[in-house]
């Protein structure tokens, strides 16, 4: 199946610009993207992007040990003001990352929680969230 996929992808690349070409990729998404929001007990406390990533890695190490801490994930974007971050993780590590985010309960002795706002195999899908549509 993987070989077939490869073949399709290479066909895709060599296909001319004007011919019709269709590729169906099943469960082939290499990454998953998550939009998460960190809620802290003390709102005045601010984390930098590096601190956030370190915090998440610490959580991974707690729940999944050294194997979990070695998991590769990226902080694509982080907004210090709203404590919202876009994370990218290999599809195989999604469950580990998600579960350790769920179980992260305290940051520097104050309770905290990660809210997972959106998860998608496509980064484009995280640019809009219909649940955020506010009408007055």
């Amino acid at each position, binding site marked *: 199946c993987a070989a077939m996929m490869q073949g399709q992808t290479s066909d895709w690349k060599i296909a001319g610009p004007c011919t019709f070409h269709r590729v169906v990729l099943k469960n082939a998404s290499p990454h998953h993207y998550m939009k998460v929001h960190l809620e802290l007990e003390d709102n005045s406390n601010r984390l930098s992007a590096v601190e956030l990533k370190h915090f998440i890695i610490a959580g991974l190490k707690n729940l999944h040990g050294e194997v979990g801490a070695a998991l590769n994930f990226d902080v694509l974007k982080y907004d210090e003001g709203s404590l919202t971050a876009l994370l990218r993780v290999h599809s195989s590590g999604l469950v580990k990352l998600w579960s350790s985010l769920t179980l992260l309960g305290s940051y520097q002795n104050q309770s905290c929680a990660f809210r997972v706002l959106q998860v998608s195999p*496509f980064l484009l899908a995280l640019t809009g969230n219909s649940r955020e549509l506010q009408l007055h």
Partner: protein
Amino acid sequence: MQDLSRCPRNLLVCERSSFQNEKNRVSAQVEQMHFNYKVSLLLPDCSSAPSHLDETLKSFNSFYLIKKLPIYKLLNENFLRSAIYNGSVYGLSHQTRIDEDNCVSLMPNGILTLSLDKDSFELLGFEGKPSRFNHRRCSRFVVTVNLTDSCMAPGRRNYLRLLEGLKSRLPLQTDFLLSHHPGGGASLHPLLSCCDWSEHQPEVKFRSLTNVSFPVPESCDPHSFLQWLGAVESGVSGENSSNSFLSSLICPEPKTQTNCALSACVSGMLLPQDIQRLIGQLRSADGTHSKHVGVGLVCDSPVSQESPGAGPVLGGADSSRFRGQPRVLGRERAWISSRRRELLQPADVPRPHLPPSLGCRRTRCLPTVMPLTHQNQEN
């Protein structure tokens, strides 16, 4: 015990063709997406929006928000006659979460869909089906009613039963988004006149970008192209060194650099007809100053239907992307992709266990019994 490295199923269908190609299915695909939340465009080498595009984006049909609409009013005879039997109505409950609340949708083909939790479903006492999302535990039910059907005509038995159910047994009330094509507000008047409503215009946003790297579409696989497009849309930097601690996202090679680009997006409740119009506009767009045109379509609706008759997909989102490159070397091309996303929108509170979507999707490995029986036969 579950395998920790499994992730939810996903499917990506990519099509690349010219807009002129007869196999091109852009229009057919857009038509099938009834509830669209956001359309975004990326115009490279463009510092300000071309006037015709600007006009099209700003002329998207407005939609109506009705506060606390009792759902039985959707069965109002005058409303059925003026809106549902004539033209297409798009209706969707607002600020309801498909995994927690009761959701209602009204599709242009006259199909009213109620996605209800078990208690509400039993209270309503109307025929429905278990939700197809969770196969293991049946906790939600979907009631699908075709309002244009003859047995649902006002006064008929089914009609009265549903009306009675929604009026007395399950007095469902929710904020409701409504839009009508081609009549607009006039067709919806019978409903609006008796409710607290407001009119809203889709929100248009322009954002100019500088120094954007563009991958060459021919040498880029669909996933990395989509990733790049998403990164540009969400303002993620693609300039990372390989040893960066935070992120290793980069623009796929080979790439070209442009000085400026324009990102435009419209969000709100968008009608497929408006999106068709926009695509038509892009199709005939003058390519003198825009080298690439990309249209991103994010349709994210609590009740979203793939095709008529299919049950609502929980937290479903259909997305399509169109990518055209008008008149490069005198030719026009489009790159289309569409994809379906299964439930990936969690409830507000992260659950203290692994995502449930994984549990219900374990594929069964075929037992190795087959070859053994063959051996036995040979023996």
